[in-house]
């Protein structure tokens, strides 16, 4: 391939912190090729990445084949926004020819025969899969410690968790092992790790991104979304990921949107709702200070603040831990050792094969949730737990409807504290579950939510500001985040040790 000039190390170093737009411009100008970009990030994953355990699979041959195809598209003048850009995908997305484990021993031998809708969209856009990221087993966890492949470490402090369940994706973007990544969010699994790793992450409105080929945890709550450093990059990624797909019965038929269309809109007059419940007992002082400072920035940008109430939000954790395990116990019944995945090597009969396969294939947290889910759905308990939780889910969702009558957008902390230490909550599920107290209600309501970097707290660990929009208001949320990122530089910080 004829290139204008061989890219030296300085050019590649510039790629480290480049936005997607900048990368696309460099690719278009032939300052760098997609193959060189892929090689550069693969090398970082191999060297710097080993201390983080952020990836379950890398497959340089596959990545480079995609990169060569992308370079051909660029040469032919048919590049799109993400053509030639390396992307790390959470290992929950089935990708043809790739090991797709969902962080579980159950799928530790599963090479997917097909592509998830999200993967298909990125592939069609010419993006390059740079690897599959580590995650909590079946996305059940808030610290990435439940992965069969071992915990991911936080690039800001390797003694700390990166959050979960999309911990590998968040850590990869924070450490610049990939420019951007994908994740999924059932109760905070994009927003919480984004906050704890100091990157931006967005969970769209339920139904905006197809769940086809995304290994199901709790189908009425699961939603895929992007991780990036900037809101602008998130918008470009959402442009690729969003859209109707007939293969997901809950995919919404809506006209395509350009999610970057409103980025530059001034925020003057925007009404920011501050739920009192977000600033109550349990919020660490460092997080409270960072969120208050962020809100002060928004006021400088012309926003008004209004107090709103989410009185039923305190029930979101109990409700979630009925509904999500109930749906999970049903979804995970498909793992029986018959058609794919792990099968026990010794068993006496069919029932014993199921029992042993599942006992060996699932880890402790997944088993726990299957037991909870089976219990709440079992005869005699359904009404008291499952139906009760569904009724409370409506009350929680209605609180947001009322709140959005008084404001345009809601803000608060993403997490009650900065990243905790590895092992700190691993033996106490209840404490672990409570770390998602500010994110879960958004999934129950089906609303879009995001987390953007908003400073540093105890131990110089990153903190996130949560931005919650009304249904289908992703473009507005990205506008709000982009404007914040024009006047702050939290999102531009790189963890020491990964800056070169």
């Amino acid at each position, binding site marked *: 391939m004829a290139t204008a000039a061989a890219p030296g190390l300085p050019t590649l170093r510039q790629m480290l912190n480049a936005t997607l737009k900048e990368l696309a411009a460099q690719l278009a100008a032939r300052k760098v090729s997609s193959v060189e970009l892929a090689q550069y990030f693969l090398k970082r994953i191999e060297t710097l990445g080993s201390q983080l355990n952020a990836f379950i699979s890398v497959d340089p041959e596959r990545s480079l084949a995609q990169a060569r195809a992308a370079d051909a598209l660029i040469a032919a003048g048919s590049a799109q926004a993400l053509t030639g850009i390396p992307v790390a995908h959470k290992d929950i997305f089935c990708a043809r020819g790739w090991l797709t484990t969902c962080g579980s021993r159950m799928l530790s*031998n599963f*090479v997917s*025969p097909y592509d998830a809708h999200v993967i298909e969209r990125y592939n069609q856009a010419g993006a390059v899969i740079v690897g599959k990221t580590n995650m909590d087993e079946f996305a059940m966890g808030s610290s990435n410690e439940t992965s069969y492949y071992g915990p991911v470490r936080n690039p800001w402090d390797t003694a700390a968790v990166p959050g979960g369940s999309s911990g590998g994706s968040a850590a990869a973007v924070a450490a610049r092992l990939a420019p951007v990544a994908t994740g999924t969010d059932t109760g905070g699994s994009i927003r919480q790790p984004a906050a704890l790793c100091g990157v931006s992450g967005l969970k769209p409105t339920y*139904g905006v991104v197809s769940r086809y080929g995304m290994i199901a945890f709790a189908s*009425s709550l699961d939603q895929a979304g992007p991780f990036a450093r900037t809101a602008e990059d998130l918008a470009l990624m959402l442009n690729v990921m969003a859209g109707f797909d*007939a293969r997901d*019965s*809950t995919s*919404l038929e809506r006209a395509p949107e350009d999610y970057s269309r409103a980025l530059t809109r001034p925020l003057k007059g925007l009404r920011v709702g501050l739920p009192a419940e977000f600033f109550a007992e349990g919020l660490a002082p460092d997080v409270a200070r960072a969120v208050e400072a962020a809100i002060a920035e928004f006021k400088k940008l012309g926003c008004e603040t209004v107090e709103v109430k989410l009185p*039923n939000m*305190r*029930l979101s954790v*109990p*409700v979630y*831990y009925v509904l999500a395990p109930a749906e999970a*116990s049903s979804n995970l*019944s498909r793992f*029986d050792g*018959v*058609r794919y995945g792990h*099968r026990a090597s010794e*068993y*006496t*009969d*069919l*029932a*014993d*094969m*199921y*029992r042993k396969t*599942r*006992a060996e294939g*699932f880890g402790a947290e997944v*088993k*726990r949730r*299957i*037991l*909870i889910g*089976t*219990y709440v759905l*079992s005869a005699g308990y359904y*009404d*008291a*737990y499952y*139906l*009760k939780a*569904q*009724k*409370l889910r*409506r*009350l929680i*969702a209605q609180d947001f409807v009322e709140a959005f009558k008084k404001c345009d957008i809601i803000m608060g902390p993403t997490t009650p504290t900065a990243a905790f230490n590895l092992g700190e909550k691993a033996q*106490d*599920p*209840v404490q672990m*579950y*409570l770390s998602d107290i500010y994110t879960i209600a958004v999934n*129950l*309501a*089906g609303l879009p939510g995001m987390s953007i970097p908003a400073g540093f707290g105890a131990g110089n660990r990153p903190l996130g500001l949560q931005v919650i929009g009304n249904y289908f208001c992703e473009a507005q949320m990205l506008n709000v985040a982009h404007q914040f990122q024009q006047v702050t530089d939290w999102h531009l910080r790189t963890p020491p040790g990964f800056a070169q």
Partner: protein
Amino acid sequence: MIPYCADNFASIERMAISLVDVKRVAHLARLEIDPAEAEQACERLRGIFGLIEAMQAVPTDGVEPMAHAQEMALRLRADQVTEADGRELFQAIAPQVEDGLYLVPKVIE
């Protein structure tokens, strides 16, 4: 409609989860569980249900259960074959197949 209201149970003190419950539920979920694991699961589940019980304090009489985030009807499609035959591809990753069939231990002698 539901024949009886779940809220009637709110005031009844539910029995804490027992080891028998754990074993019954593990059986329903087709999970082999050894005695030590069952003991530990029982203890953890009690803690988790302690959290979950907070739900019972809130009255929900007359509230329509919310099963889904979007109020939508499931789409119908024409009754036509749309998927290509992927049997060989899918069976290539199965633990045990023969003549295009998935093999499992004999169920009927």
